[in-house]
């Protein structure tokens, strides 16, 4: 795999980026598709990091400020962050067709790949050696997520307030331990959390 440093996807976006000049280079529809297909296939887990590398550093379709702006927006929208990014990015350059092409590039190749994997699993999923390997991978993936959460919790504690950790804990207890339905939990916790953040500005 690539050993080049990739930007952390948990990096907070710049608070107030300076106004950015319009990008010089306009991708065609085909370039959009190819770009998102490449991002998708080269990214394991943190796909967003790879998108910055391509959009900002290699193709120069976005300035760093424009990328941060788009990222900040995608992070607060529902759905996959990178999915939202592909839609917003594609539509900004090529309208609805650009959005569709970008999302097709992002989802198409892994969709085909994962169906092949699914078919293999359907046939060989009961082979003990494969099951044990997958269990190992699932355990490692759970560990990776725990580490990410632990890293992202640090700034929450630094901000003198206890409300952030309390909200995170309440979410964890209701979803992770109590297994309550997600829409119900979010309908209560999200307005409360945003309301508190709003008042504290």
């Amino acid at each position, binding site marked *: 795999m690539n050993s080049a440093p990739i930007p952390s996807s948990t990096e907070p976006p710049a608070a107030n980026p300076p106004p950015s000049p319009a990008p010089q280079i306009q991708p065609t529809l085909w370039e959009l598709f190819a770009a998102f297909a490449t991002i*998708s296939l080269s*990214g394991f887990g943190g796909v967003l990091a790879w998108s910055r590398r391509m959009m900002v550093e290699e193709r120069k379709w976005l300035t760093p400020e424009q990328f941060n702006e788009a990222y900040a*927006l995608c*992070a607060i929208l*529902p*759905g*996959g*962050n*990178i*999915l*939202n990014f592909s*839609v*917003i990015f594609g539509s*900004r350059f090529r309208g*609805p067709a650009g*959005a569709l092409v970008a999302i097709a590039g*992002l*989802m198409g*190749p*892994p*969709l085909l*790949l*994962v*169906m092949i*994997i*699914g*078919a293999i*699993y359907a046939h060989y999923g009961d082979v003990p050696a494969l099951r*044990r*390997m*997958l*269990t*190992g*991978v*699932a*355990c*490692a*993936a759970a*560990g*990776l*997520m*725990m*580490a990410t959460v632990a890293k*992202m919790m640090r700034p*929450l504690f630094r901000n003198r307030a206890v409300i952030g950790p*309390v*909200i*995170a804990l309440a*979410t*964890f207890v209701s979803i*992770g331990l109590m*297994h309550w*339905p*997600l*829409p119900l939990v*979010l309908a209560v*916790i*999200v307005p409360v959390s945003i*309301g508190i953040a*709003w008042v504290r500005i």
Partner: protein
Amino acid sequence: MKTDGGTLLTLASFFAVLSLFAIGGGNSAVPEMHRFSVDVQHWLTDRQFADTFALAQLTPGPNLIIVTLIGYHVAGVLGALVTTLAMCGPSGVFAFFVGRASDRFKGASWHGAVSRGLVPVTLGLTASSAIVIATTADYGWVAAAITAGTALTAYFMRVHPLWAFAVAALLGLSGLI
């Protein structure tokens, strides 16, 4: 596995709604996918769900691709397509219109409040995903040790996910789990 219109409709409606509640990306919706497909619909066993999650992690591309695998497991190729479209459609349309209007929002003060308010919720959801996967996949102290070991290593060092997966898969293969 039966593949009737009712099943496809259930898949489509569940994942279409889920796409609008998946804040913080695909991994934060994993507990809800588990609750619905294992506990409510009995489409998969705990073990199959953990396997599906592992396979999605091993596939390049967005983490969200786990929904395609669930759809494939439940209703074949058609199920995979329906599930993927349902998971991408509503949130994609929403992002499209917000993206169009976003120039007007630039620097709006509510943006900061929404962002700060969502961060702790997203963290709670990601932690939930980790515990749901760990408790469905764990079958003993070796598996728990792999989870803890990966967590500690990744916390104190920069680890590429593929290395962690390769080591864990080898430990599994060796028959320790």
